[in-house]
């Protein structure tokens, strides 16, 4: 619990806009408490920059509790930094030592164009969900909640998948910038529950095909699972692949009639 002060050298990616060339800038800090979070460290650096008339580093964040998925940068080449199961905002400076050099970059992926500095555009993730990541049930149409018992194991497994925060670290960590872990987590969440069965095949087909429009292809590196702040398992990718194949088969037999909607 003791508070130590760290001296750090930061190499931070600065880029003025989507079409500008980027560059690394080096900043020195001398008074970062190891109780501080990584983003508080950046706040502090920004206060210094502003005092010296330099525009502050743009970075995305909101909840600072590891749940909204807004934050996320590459820290020394690792998505969300060195601590397992930890989003950038939950990373604390006690993970670093005085004298360290820390390289901070935005997510790098074709599907995530850089907006400014460390901020990227992750709209592609929303497009994947929009294509089928839901259960069709209009407000007011639902039966009593306890009418369909859900085996506890199924509910727990669905929750494991549903824990995804949509930060995009899986894509950033993947050498191919694949969107498999994100997509499979949403599919598993819904496909594992009794409520999700009616649309299981149309959902799997639509989401996989939308994913392929935006993201690279998966070659089983497993880096995504390592980087995931919620430690979502790549087993869900296997499930997605199975469901997708089945969906194609089912659809072919029905003459390709089934479409999501």
């Amino acid at each position, binding site marked *: 619990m003791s508070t130590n002060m760290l001296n750090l050298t930061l190499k931070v990616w600065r880029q003025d*806009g989507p079409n500008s060339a980027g560059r690394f800038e080096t900043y020195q800090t001398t008074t970062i408490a190891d109780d501080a979070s990584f983003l508080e460290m950046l706040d502090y650096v920004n206060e210094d920059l502003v005092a010296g008339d330099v525009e502050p580093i743009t970075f995305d964040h909101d909840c*600072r509790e590891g749940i909204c998925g807004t934050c996320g940068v590459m820290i020394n080449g690792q998505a969300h930094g060195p601590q397992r*199961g930890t989003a950038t905002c939950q990373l604390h400076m006690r993970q670093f030592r005085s004298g360290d050099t820390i390289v901070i970059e935005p997510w790098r992926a074709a599907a995530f164009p850089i907006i400014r500095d460390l901020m990227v*555009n*992750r709209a592609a993730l929303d497009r994947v969900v929009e294509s089928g990541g839901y259960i069709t049930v209009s407000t007011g*149409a*639902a039966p009593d909640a306890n009418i369909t018992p859900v085996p*506890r194991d199924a509910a727990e497994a669905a929750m494991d998948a549903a824990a995804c925060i949509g930060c995009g670290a899986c894509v950033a960590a993947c050498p191919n910038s694949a969107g498999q872990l994100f997509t499979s987590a949403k599919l598993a969440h819904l496909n594992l529950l009794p409520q999700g069965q009616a649309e299981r095949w149309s959902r799997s087909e639509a989401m996989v095909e939308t994913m392929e429009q935006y993201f690279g292809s998966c070659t089983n590196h497993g880096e995504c699972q390592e980087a995931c702040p919620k430690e979502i398992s790549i087993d869900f990718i296997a499930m997605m692949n199975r469901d997708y194949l089945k969906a194609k088969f089912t659809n072919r037999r029905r003459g390709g009639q089934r479409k999501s909607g």
Partner: protein
Amino acid sequence: MSLQLDSRIPGGALSDKWENYKFDLKLVNPNNRRKFTVIVVGTGLAGGAAAATLGELGYNVKVFTYHDSPRRAHSIAAQGGINAAKNYRGDGDSIHRLFYDTIKGGDFRAREANVHRLAEVSTNIIDQCVAQGVPFGREYGGLLDNRSFGGAQVSRTFYARGQTGQQLLLGAYQSLARQIHLGTCELFNKMELVDVVLNNDGQACGIIARDLLTGELSRHAGHAVVLATGGYGNVYFLSTNAKNSNATAAWRAHRKGAAFANPCYTQIHPTCIPPSDEFQSKLVLMSESLRNDGRIWVPRNADDCGLDASAVPEDARDYYLERKYPAFGNLVPRDIASRNAKTMVDQGLGIGPLRNGVYLDFSHAIERLGADVIKGRYGNLFDMYERITGEDPYKVPMRIYPATHYTMGGLWVDYNLQTTVPGLFAIGEANFSDHGANRLGASALMQGLADGYFVLPPTMAGFLAPRLGESLVSTSDPVFEQAERDVRDRIDQLLAVKGTHSVDHYHRELGKLVWDYCGMARNAAGLEKALSEIPALRAEFYKDLKVLGSAESVNQSLEKALRVADVMELAELKVRDALHREESCGGHFRDEHQTDEGEAKRDDENFMYVGAWEWGGSDIQRDAVLHKEPLVYEAVKPTQRSYK
């Protein structure tokens, strides 16, 4: 301008009001719905649910958020759970009991009719969410599980591990995604409302939005505007709210004529991690559900406060909540738990390196149930605590202290959730809502979803039906031009100051003032001090603020400056309200008004009303005009709250 508060509460028996009223509300024929454009600002539980439902019904919905994705709204962070009167446990719960608990928990400062409606629709919410695939916690038989929360003696809280808000929000987000896909809802992400536009009759006709990526201002017209923009807890700078949460939408609406109700009612949550240093940027909440199994204590003797917890023997510990409130023990409502923690720390009994916390101890529960059971219940919360503090709560007690968490005050709305500006609605935490002077745990999620899924859609139809055939106000109309010009002036003014201090500097200073003088306990001298210091700080802000960069690109300092400028005004109104309310009730505790035992002492004779303020001009303490909506209790008899 003379503002009228008409709550439009329907007549009839309490339990029939909503059903009868819904039947009487006008409907819009399905084919006509797409002729109406509704602007929904905010995609949290309230806004996400409302936008999706209005889209399903066939309205033409334009939905705005300053986030990059609707899924990131602050609602995502709610941990503990959502209440509903399902009585699945058979432990005596009912709609009436949930209604009663909420009224009592709110210290008899909420409207009976609204609260009863909330309790009625609570059960529909759970049905809806389960059908959407929200993975609530279940028992081995496959049925839904419940936990208990403060201020209730039944188990009515549904949960999804410690991520209930996340799962409920994803449910609403996915429903919204479906409507976006179908084209009924159009999403404007990274777009911040910077002003509300009224037509020449004083009715809301649209908004001005700022694109946070390009800085471009744009005009959007609607037949109605819904604000689902969350609370104003960040007036304290340090709070459990997400960093970007802000009050600009509500405040801009207020400046355009929407009354702001009970701004002094804020909730301080008892179980947050105490600050560790002055660079702290926000406070992190540890779910209240932890109080089911954790026991709160401080050493009896100030000399023991510096020791390790394990070195303080049982008989030298004061489990003060269990001692003072044997019936509810550690599960007393939040305001009581918070105030008692403050009393302990103020008496010099605080623990931790800065002596700014109390213990929340799980050792007894771990002994009784085993570490695995505790891990099953709270594992992710324990992990989060350890990441932040570097301490292992399975081995040493957590350190907790109260922090600002929720705002019961907000835009005044009538039974239709319409503000005093016709056509402008407020839902979720943004309205002054159903929680009176104190909200019970797990009831905000319930209220946000009730408003969004079940209350607003029918009342919106009632508002729109008579307006069939009315065209939208053109965005080149002078009212839009003027509004956009005003926004541009505000931006130019902030960029032109070119002073020496950053926005965060001012926000921190403001937060300190409000926390010190209008936090957990308030008194006239302190409030008056704040009323002289806040305007001074505001004046300095406009003289010495430093915002670098331009208005034509991403500029997070400018975004913050616009928000802080608004919340500084709101802070003044909040303090003004706290000064005027010469009583203690719920989260509003005036030192001058307490019982001999130190509990909040209400003054029902003089203050049993909603205090709704009308904007009168920028000298807020002089110009704001107070309007009173009397509260009438027919079904419950107000009593002195007791949790002993």
